């Protein structure tokens, strides 16, 4: 099978993980995050640096998830204290600050980026083959999808749904809003970190620019285009926005115009996204 197509599919898989992870905070719990690429980056750098220092892939992979989750916690604690409207802005600021930190630390290679990241090793054997890597990604993605559904239908998921619809009412019902929101961000960060780890070992080279605002916006667009809160929607959105630039290659100059126009058009004509519920177009949650 064409190596190029395999490459595109791997990218779809990784971005699907990112979209799904963002869907937890945005779609399940109703928290707007504009800095998600920062978690992607933290996971990528953490995993890359750990493997360069000599540790194995399972350690790097797991640590990437945990370190990112911890940093998510660090973000959530102060960030959730602000009013919902401002959360988006705080996450935006967080994303930008993290990118600038990546650019200026020696251990991350600064603006040059991290070179020579070792590939994924399974049982001591480096995994160079693309179909093999794709399989690995699909397996992990599969796990993710299953856990997403489990979460959504669990007590946690229902608590999130209650908070998303109206957090004041939810707190009256005895739900610890603060705790559940923090949980949403931490879990979302964890999965994004894992995706980052896979990405780093696949491309063997990362630099800060990949994890900036542009990427955060793209991941958010995937979630919104697919339908906020919908799991198949997130998958579809990721596939669409990853494949689109490849398909539009002959129109390279017009690509961004098309992307921007697509976003506006989708919001105006079908704001609930491809798979979303129409309910989302009603006036939302708290009063303005």
């Amino acid at each position, binding site marked *: 099978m*064409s*190596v*190029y*197509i395999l*490459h*595109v599919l791997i*990218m779809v898989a990784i971005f699907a993980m990112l979209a799904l992870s963002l869907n937890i905070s945005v779609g399940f719990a109703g928290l707007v995050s504009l800095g998600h690429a920062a978690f992607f980056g933290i996971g990528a750098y953490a995993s890359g640096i750990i493997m360069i220092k000599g540790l194995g892939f399972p350690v790097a992979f797991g640590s990437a998830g945990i370190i990112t989750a911890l940093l998510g916690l660090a973000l959530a604690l102060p960030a959730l204290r602000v009013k919902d409207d401002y959360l988006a802005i705080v996450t935006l600021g967080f994303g930008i600050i993290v990118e600038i930190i990546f*650019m*200026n630390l020696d251990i991350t290679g*600064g*603006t*040059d*980026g991290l*070179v*020579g990241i070792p590939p994924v090793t399974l049982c001591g054997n480096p995994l*160079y083959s693309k179909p093999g890597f794709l399989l690995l990604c699909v397996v992990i993605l599969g796990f993710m999808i299953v856990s997403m559904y489990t979460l959504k239908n669990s007590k946690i998921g229902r608590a999130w749904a209650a908070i998303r619809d109206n957090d004041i009412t939810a707190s009256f019902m005895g739900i610890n809003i603060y705790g559940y929101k923090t949980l949403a961000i931490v879990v979302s960060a964890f999965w994004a970190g894992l995706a980052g780890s896979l990405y780093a070992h696949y*491309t*063997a*080279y*990362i*630099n800060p*620019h*990949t994890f900036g605002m542009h990427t955060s916006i793209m991941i958010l667009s995937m979630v919104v285009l697919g339908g906020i809160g919908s799991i198949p929607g997130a998958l*579809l959105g990721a*596939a*669409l926005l990853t*494949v689109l630039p*490849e*398909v*539009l*290659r002959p129109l*390279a*100059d017009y690509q*961004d115009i098309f992307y921007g126009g697509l976003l506006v058009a989708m919001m105006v004509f079908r704001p609930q996204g*491809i*798979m979303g519920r129409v309910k989302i177009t009603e006036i939302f949650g708290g009063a303005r």
Partner: protein
Amino acid sequence: MQRLWLLVMVAMVVLGLGLSEARAAEEIKIGAILRLSQGASDGLPAKRGVEIAVKEINAAGGINGKQLKVIFEDEKDSAPASVAAYQKLVSMDKVKVIIGPMMSGNVLAVAPLAQRDKIVIVTPNGTSPKISDAGEYVYRGCTRIDKQAASLTKYAKESLKTTKPVILYSNEPYGKGCNDLFTKCFAELGIPVISTESFMVGDRDFSAQLTKLKQKPFDLLFIPGYLQETAPAISQARRMGITAQSMGVFGDMAPKYIELAGKASEGHINCSEYDEDYNTPTNKKFKDAYYKIVKADTKEPNNAMFAAITYDMTRLVSTAIATKGGAPDQMRGYLDTVKDFDGVTGKLSFDNNGDVVKQGVYIFKVVKGKYVKVK
């Protein structure tokens, strides 16, 4: 409704990817990964350089009778985009050689893949020293930044009599690399750099950094970076009353720099890979072709140096295919042994690391709004 969307999407994917597979077979294809969307002043001229070379070669009968075709991709100033472009060129278009990427970071991202796939890549202007060690399939068409640094610092010491330089650099791989290397070269000449400040790509306000630099007296203001920032920087410096000699690297080698910096560019020293007055028939032919394109469209950026480099690289690569064959190892055989190739940037050959060797760096000075070669 939802299922319809799904179908549409799948159809688009299959169509899009499938269409790219169906290409003609009776031509020789090379790929080019250049800064097309972001590189206002260097990417488009670089593309023109390739186009001029290809047109010339095809007009003369192509390569052993087959027409030469180049497929351009955009590196989008992003490592993942460069890698995706590389993957597409190699596995869908089946090119055996790629000119580009232009930015060092992107070259370093693509290099390990090129090594593994045994595809020759020739970067026209990646300046990072790390590229020399990137592998035997990686070639470079411009002078390494440390050699540029050595030339310029020597010139600064001997001709400009610099004793107290300061550096205001662009905080990305190119500018930072320059900062590190020039500091080292100055130190080797016994000249300590008094202070350094930095700015980001996209910044236009340098008053904070310049005010800070002004606190200590200096006699040379070195600003490495891309001209979109270096030109406003020198302009603001002059406006603030800084009269010290200014110096830059080859990012400043473009009429656009003089236009944006205005009178502030007067006296500016910078280096370049290309001398327009280099008197060979090949160069004259190239210049005629290039300036014809520039005059035809006012929106066309005018930057002969970048076009010259890609023009030479394209011709080198085509000659390699014509004389030794189109397989990567055959091409390498030619590139590693070629001597005194008639390029517009000089008489070219490659050293052991795949870096181009020519008679050295040209140093230019801006005099009355035009570049004048001084060395």
